[in-house]
């Protein structure tokens, strides 16, 4: 532990990020290494080309959306702290451990996780998943197997299911309600290696 916290000094904003995201020092260190690996030119920030260099990502149907989620609106680059903050959404929630200094609504809370998922759809960030936005996601995920008409009627149905106020779009609240039964913590967590 001692060695890792000493090298934590190399990580920019190390202590603060630990506080904020709940990652341990070992996690942060590992993530920083990954960050530096992705950051081929050592600029200290990542651009979308850097993400695209990950070979597996090109096979991922919604890979570009995920990458897009790393970028704040209007920004072209991602520095390490925002990189970690995005990843923090995927940290499993601890149930019984309440850490001192934990924020009231940490990034890995159910709400924040859902918000993240919601934003994957809501590309224009108007707080609603419109039919067109849903259709885009569906198109990316179903690919060639289904015809455009089928896609459209799937999208229509999905919206009808979730749409409570009948505005033909899914708001975040509706989104949350429709996923009430889903164990988000289970579904949206990965195990970060130490």
């Amino acid at each position: 532990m001692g060695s890792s916290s000493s090298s934590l000094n190399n990580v920019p904003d190390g202590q603060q990020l630990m506080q904020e995201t709940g990652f341990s020092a070992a996690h942060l260190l590992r993530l920083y290494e990954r960050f530096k690996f992705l950051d081929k030119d050592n600029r200290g920030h990542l651009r979308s080309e850097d993400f695209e260099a990950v070979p597996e990502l090109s096979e991922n149907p919604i890979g570009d959306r995920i990458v897009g989620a790393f970028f704040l609106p209007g920004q072209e680059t991602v520095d390490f702290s925002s990189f970690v903050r995005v990843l923090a959404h995927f940290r499993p929630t601890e149930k019984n451990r309440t850490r001192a200094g934990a924020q009231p609504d940490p990034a890995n809370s159910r709400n924040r996780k859902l918000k993240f998922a919601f934003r994957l759809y809501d590309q224009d960030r108007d707080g609603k998943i419109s039919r067109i936005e849903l259709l885009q996601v569906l198109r990316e995920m179903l690919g060639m197997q289904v015809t455009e008409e089928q896609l459209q009627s799937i999208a229509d149905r999905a919206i009808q299911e979730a749409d409570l106020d009948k505005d033909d779009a899914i708001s975040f609240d509706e989104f949350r309600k429709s996923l009430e039964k889903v164990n988000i913590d289970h579904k949206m967590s990965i195990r970060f290696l130490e």
Partner: protein
Amino acid sequence: MGPRWTSALLLCLLMVASSLANEAPAHETSASGGNQTSTGHGEAAPITTLPIVTWKWHHVSTPYLVALWILVSWLCKLVIEANHHVTTYIPESALLICLGFLLGGMIWGADKVQTFKLTPTVFFFYLLPQIILDSGYAMPNKLFFTNMGGILIHAIIGTCWNAATLGLSLWGCHKGGAMGDIDIGLLQYLLFGSLLAAVDPVAVIAVFEQVHVNEVLFIMVFGESLLNDGVTVVLFNVFDAFVSLGGGAIDAKEIVKGIISFFVVAFGGSLVGFVFGLLISLLTRCTKNIQIIEPGFIFVLGYLAYLTAEMLSLSAILSVMFCGMCCQKYINSNMDERSVQTVRSALKVFANGSETIIFVFLGISAIDKSIWVWNTGFILLTLFFILVYRFIGVFVLTWMMNRFRLVPISLVDQVIMGYGGLRGAVAYGLAVLLDETRIKEKNLMISTTLIVVYFTVIFQGITMKPLVQWLKVKRAALVELSLIEKVQNKVFDHALIAIEDISGQIGHNYMRDKWRNFEEKWMSWFLLKSSARKKQDRLFNVFHELNLQDAMEYVTEGERRGSLDFIRNENAFVDFKKKFDEDFAEAMPDIMADMIQFDGCNVVFLYRGDPVPSVSLEMHEQNLRGLRQAEEINAHHLLEQHLYKGRKQHRHKFSRSHFSINQDENEVQEIFQRTMRSRLESFKSGKMGVAPPKTITKHTKREQQPKMPNGKNRSYYSGDEDFEFSEGDSASGYDASFPTRVSYRTGAGIENPAFMPDVDPSSPMHIPPWLADAELEVSPVAPSQRAQVRLPWMPGHLHRLSSLRTSPRSGDSVQEGDEQLPPPPPPPPRHDRDDNHL
């Protein structure tokens, strides 16, 4: 009433069975005496006269007894399940064992010796395979592989731990003098430990299925119990070999060999199963032409997988289980929907049936004085150690695992896992297999095993449910399919993979993604029919299922309202929410699709501005052509079932290779005559240029109304005569076809349009040409060649007819539907012929 009646029947049967069994030896002796012609062994003695009937019990005794016992066991289940208030407290398996005690007692009372016992051969060769195959086939693969690590650790290490600790502790207690004077060495103790080590899948499933624990807990216990059965058999064999080698001959080399053999047997068995699973999948790629026996391949090959592994002295249980797990996905997509259903239900019949038999016989086997040897110390200590070590094992192993698990297993779940360590028939079967010459205390071991089984199944089984409730174990949530959830789950999957990729972590999702890519690229290509590959997408399946579900709801709604009228009623349709647009289209897909294919109608259809959005319309056309015909027909069938039914129900004609439906000749006759009568009337009136006498149509209406199977049909008879025209722009596919019909009819020389809407809906009045032909050619079964040639002219689904003739469920419905449909354009020759006929 029901239960009492069945239990009476049960008792009678039991009497018969035991009395027959008693008679058997008697007859045997008399038959060998060679004097009684009545035994059926008359060949030995010259017969003086021709016996009219002979009593041949001897001839059939074995299969007869087997069948009778199966029947008795199943009736036991029936009796138990009829008493719901009991099964809510006591699990069925425990009750079955208790009924087994009862039956055993009766046999004992009659015979003074236990004639029927569960023998290892019967158990391992005829009762166990189907249970394991069913478990493998029904295994939720994703869940299993996600928790694979934990399951393997528990199954392998946990089982070894159980075996070793039980054996060693018992040996220690023996040395300490807790058991008195019995002749068991260390190796024998270990052998005994290994046979009792495994949690039994049969018992576990029986109990856990009733308590509905959450899926992770279920898969942990279930997967473990399946795998460790294989493990325990392997362990048993290794120790059995050690025992026969004798303590002195065992050195390090032998032990190493034992360990190697353990792994070879376990993994070899799995490999055999895997190979057989591939074989089945490959085979189902090309069984299109023998669909009727298609499901049989799964059973035969599954059984062969078991036997092959057994032959190679590999783990047969693991083999058949992996066989089921590997092939499930591919055969489900490759085979016809009906075959899949058959496989599912037949497997359930076999598995559930043999499970029942196993429990009953576990009970029966106990009532046998010759096996009971009591040794308080041995038995109680065994029970105690089993419980304690199970708990210790589970806690230690889960503690280790939890350090690596994303979602740790909670303490409560661990308690349930520990408590769910039920032992069952596998242990008993192995105990009976013990060699008496080498193990002097075999009977003690058998009776201890039996007691352990009874204790765990009955006592732990009964207390499991209260414990689950008391500890507030997370129960399984009722999974409700919703489209957005499915989409979202998929998004989550992809998101996790992407995040793992970005953050450079290699985890479950990474591996799963890799496997899925491989699977999609190679396995599917290799093992799936090209047509089946297309319908792989789960999201789409969910969508489809939802649509189907809605279609059924819609029909139910129609039934509730007493008619399908509301379809036509624009207002009701709007009320019925937008979502029913699709449902509606779903319900009548082929009508629409066919309308589109049928050129003449297409124009009319568009012109009429049908409210069904063209989106779903086209979708269903797609569906019909390619994707999901079978299910569509289901929805369809449901709808059509409620439409017109002839006076006589259709009768099934027996055929070994087809589910063909025979149309009853009388019905053809009847429809024909009615049609002729009405046609004659209309023809006359058409000629004379007067409106048809209303009395006739009214008369037919009255005549038919009471025969309608349900109110739905009334929509075609009630209401004003021409309501179809007034609501011409309504949604119904039937409606949409009306103009077509009218024009055709006009062409056929009937000029009174006002007459049409009345008679046509009650379309049995009009004989479809294929029926007319059939009538003339006295072959009512299939459309004659002439009729088939004419099929393309007809609107509606007539041209589906030929392709669907072999379909069992839709066969009759299609025909009924056809009767509903507007009559086809009668070409001039037919008209002439009709006249001639009249």
